[in-house]
């Protein structure tokens, strides 16, 4: 139905962001475009819609929708095609909807443009929205409802092809599952072709009929989804992707460590583009660029035909399944030490912790009600242990973290928090500084956690200056150099600004900054959710090593359940400010007791 051949997209500086991508979509089927950030996924989708940003141009290739040549159409005809036969759903529903128009008005606009046969009410019904939502404004709806409204708009044009660019990345897992179900439903009901762009293997497994794996602007492997997950793929990159994804099944094992990160658009290595990161690299790989043959772009593809059921299913890679691919270049870590036997000394004890924000109304700003962000939480964290705090957005997990670090206004926090047996909620002055030496935090977004106008060395030194006044500048410098080395960066990083580093490197910097002052407790607030999976594996390995070396306790805040199963010792599931279930990670993940935990686990894709 929609075919794309040899698409080349050139960036403003003349380099190629997409370099010869060919795809074929069929009616009623879902093609998943899988890849890490910077691979050219979104550029491919935007090229199909001819919505590339200013300066980015289609430099070659053809796209046909039926008999229609998309790249040759005049803009006027293309406009009627967009939202008509060819529709696109974007990642962030809030910015895709006009905030000052009601949902009904926006759907009506799409209907008027394309002469839809369906009424607004029917369209809303199709995407599972209630009739009363028609008169709502986008800000009155939840993220999932907004995404539904956006899909309803797209359906108004009765599209033959729907392109969904990371449609659920901004949503919670339970909502994500609903939206994915809706997309699958609509696709089969309307016999649409669906091009789903994602970085998430689980979504690819759940949604895809065919999976095209993108790396550095090229399709490196096209494979039927079931074959992919049966065999683990034939291209080393595909295989690596499968092996760097943490899961309960991989618990206690090292994740494959894929060195480096995806090269920047256009700055691609000669020969095979994956060669610098490939562990099965042969000299010829650096010379010859492999072509896409039999669905795989590799000189030495793994295995022959995907046939036998594979132990990869349960997440344990075996030598047989790896075939000629190399053994894991695994990072060593202290997984072998029986952590159950570690000292049972309690480091952090939380009793009945509440964070209540006052809701103020009226002229005199009287408190009319309270928002109970954290509502009576009890937790215990031992030395050297990892406690995962799991929950969806708005469940209060970040408020809890901020309360523990005393970043929350004191008036909003009640309860007891003991660190090393000392009550910390009423600390002041120099004793508060002692707390800050013991507990530090690593944030989710590595791009906002470092001051963009401060050199890395100064950023790292800041904590030392404030909390380790006994150190002189030479000692501080020594400590910073030691920590930079420890997280895999070197001294040359110090005079540079954060923008010169990739997301993964920045997260290492943030970890180094927190570790410089040698805390006992590190709060990790979704430390890997902004990172690519291959980089996530590196950061997780680093965290493991550091924990083994320093006996650190981690409070690991996340919404990613497979990650919890892989990484945490114990887990506490949080909903609406309360802990609904807590226990050893393995048992909670394997046999959840609380309905909410069960729902969360059932929603996790893959």
């Amino acid at each position, binding site marked *: 139905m929609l075919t794309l051949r040899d698409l080349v997209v050139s960036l403003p500086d003349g380099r190629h962001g997409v370099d010869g991508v060919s795809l074929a979509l069929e009616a009623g089927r879902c093609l998943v475009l899988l890849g890490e950030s910077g691979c050219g996924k979104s550029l491919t989708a935007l090229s199909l819609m001819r919505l590339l940003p200013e300066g980015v141009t289609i430099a070659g290739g053809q796209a046909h929708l039926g008999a229609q040549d998309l790249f040759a159409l005049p803009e006027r005809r293309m406009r009627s095609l967009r939202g008509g036969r060819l529709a696109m759903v974007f990642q962030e529903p809030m910015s895709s909807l006009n905030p000052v128009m009601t949902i009904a008005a926006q759907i009506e606009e799409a209907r008027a443009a394309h002469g839809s046969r369906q009424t607004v009410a029917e369209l809303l019904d199709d995407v599972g929205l209630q009739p009363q939502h028609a008169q709502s404004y986008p800000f009155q709806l939840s993220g999932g409802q907004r995404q539904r409204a956006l899909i309803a708009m797209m359906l108004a044009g009765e599209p033959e092809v729907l392109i969904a660019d990371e449609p659920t990345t901004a949503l919670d897992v339970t909502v994500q599952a609903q939206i994915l179900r809706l997309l699958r439903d609509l696709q089969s009901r309307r016999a649409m072709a669906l091009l789903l762009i994602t970085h998430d293997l689980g979504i690819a497994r759940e949604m895809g009929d065919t999976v095209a794996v993108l790396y550095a602007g090229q399709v490196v492997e096209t494979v039927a989804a079931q074959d992919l997950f049966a065999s683990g793929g034939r291209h080393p990159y595909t295989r690596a992707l499968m092996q760097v994804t943490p899961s309960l099944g991989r618990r206690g094992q090292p994740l494959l460590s894929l060195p480096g990160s995806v090269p920047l658009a256009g700055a691609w290595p000669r020969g095979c583009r994956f060669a610098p990161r490939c562990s099965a690299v042969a000299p010829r790989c650096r010379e010859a660029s492999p072509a896409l043959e039999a669905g795989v772009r590799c000189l030495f593809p793994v295995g022959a035909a995907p046939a036998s059921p594979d132990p990869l299913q349960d997440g344990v890679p075996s030598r047989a399944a790896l075939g000629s691919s190399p053994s894991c270049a695994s990072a060593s870590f202290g997984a072998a030490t029986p952590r159950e036997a570690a000292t049972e000394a309690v480091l952090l004890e939380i009793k009945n912790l509440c964070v209540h924000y006052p809701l103020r109304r009226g002229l005199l700003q009287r408190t009319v009600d309270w928002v109970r962000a954290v509502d009576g939480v009890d937790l215990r964290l031992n030395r050297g242990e990892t406690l995962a705090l799991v929950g969806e957005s708005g469940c209060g997990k970040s408020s809890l973290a901020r309360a523990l670090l005393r970043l929350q206004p004191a008036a909003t926090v009640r309860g007891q928090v003991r660190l090393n047996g000392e009550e910390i909620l009423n600390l002041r002055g120099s004793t508060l500084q002692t707390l*800050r030496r013991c507990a530090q935090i690593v944030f989710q977004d590595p791009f906002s956690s470092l001051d963009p*106008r*401060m050199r890395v060395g100064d950023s790292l030194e800041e904590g030392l200056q404030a909390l380790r006044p006994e150190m002189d500048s030479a000692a501080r410098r020594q400590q910073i150099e030691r920590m930079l080395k420890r997280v895999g960066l070197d001294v040359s990083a110090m005079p540079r600004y954060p923008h010169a580093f990739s997301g993964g490197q920045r997260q290492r910097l943030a970890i180094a900054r927190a570790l410089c002052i040698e805390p006992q407790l590190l709060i990790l607030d979704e430390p890997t959710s902004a990172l690519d999976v291959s980089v996530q594996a590196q950061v997780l390995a680093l965290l493991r090593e550091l924990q083994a070396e320093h006996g650190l306790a981690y409070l690991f805040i996340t919404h990613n359940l497979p990650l919890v199963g892989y990484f945490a010792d114990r887990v506490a599931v949080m909903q609406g400010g309360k802990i609904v279930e807590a226990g050893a990670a393995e048992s909670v993940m394997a046999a959840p007791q609380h309905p909410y935990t069960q729902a969360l686990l059932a929603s996790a894709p893959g």
Partner: protein
Amino acid sequence: MINIQPTVLISDAVLFLLLAAVGVYIWRARRSENARATWRGVFASGTGRWAAWVMAFFVSIGVLDSLHFRVAVETPAGQAQQYSGEVLSVLDAILTPLRTASEKTYSAPFATTLLVKESVTLADGSVARLAPAITHIHPLGTDKVGQDVLYLALKSVRTGLLIGTLTTLVMLPFACALGLAAGYFGGWVDDAIQYLYTTLNSIPGVLLIAAAVLVVDVQIDAHAEWFNSAAARADLRLLALCAILGLTGWTGLARLLRAETLKLRELDYIQAARAFGVSHGWILVRHVLPNVAHLIIISVVLDFSGLVLAEAVLSYVGAGVDPATPSFGNMINAARLELAREPVVWWPLATAFAFLFALVLAANLFADAVRAAFDPRGAR
């Protein structure tokens, strides 16, 4: 040898203090590798270098015009040396040919005759109406009282620079301190500061300034003994104007900074700094201020041109600089009548416009180059 007495007006002192501060900064920056590299970035771009040269030209004119002295007058022997009441500057001394070459009234650029015809008694006793010949060639013409326009424009540079920089100097501490504090601390601090600037903003700006200037004027008139020369008096009036403009002009920038700080204070790196126990003051200075610096630079440079023009508006209502002080505002203000004349006298306005344009454009481009060089996202 000419016997002179150096005279330091208050604004001269302020200007030289400012220059000294810049000098100290340059001395410190030269010793720091990072700062040197950054400033090299400013001058690396073609526009940055050109803008810097033009700015340097204007600033050196301003500095030369701030080195004041009085010339000795003939004093009977035995008495203490007396000095002229007229305060001159080094610039005046350099421009003596222009300064002293005055005509009776208007003349066009490079004209050989005055603009206005006069009844002249010719040698044969008949009376003819013709434009008298002028005594000197004036490249930019002369104004109503026959002063050379180029000389006036060059003298106006100091006034413009002073109003621009001194007002900014008065305004910046208020705008930064109050704007950052309101955004960062929130709560009652924010409320109090917001009430303050909303109140200030709700009074029409020109009226507030005019009222304040008139109060100052009354004080100046009541204390004639404070001043030993007309220049000192005009100078104080100029300083008062800068202070008043600064005290009333900080609200816009403060509001901008408050909004940006509100956004910044929630960012992770501020939270991280707080988790390190860094004090609020340090966070504001080290994390917030550098990250709003681009806003400050942009709005200060834009305000600079606005202030020079505000001076013209105030001259119109009679609350600007002293009418005797050469200033672009006074020149523009005079142009109201000149443009209504027949034939039109366009050159004072055109000169003021060209000088202002060059000054403001150079300041803008230079500020842009500085901003780009200090932006870590720039190429480096």
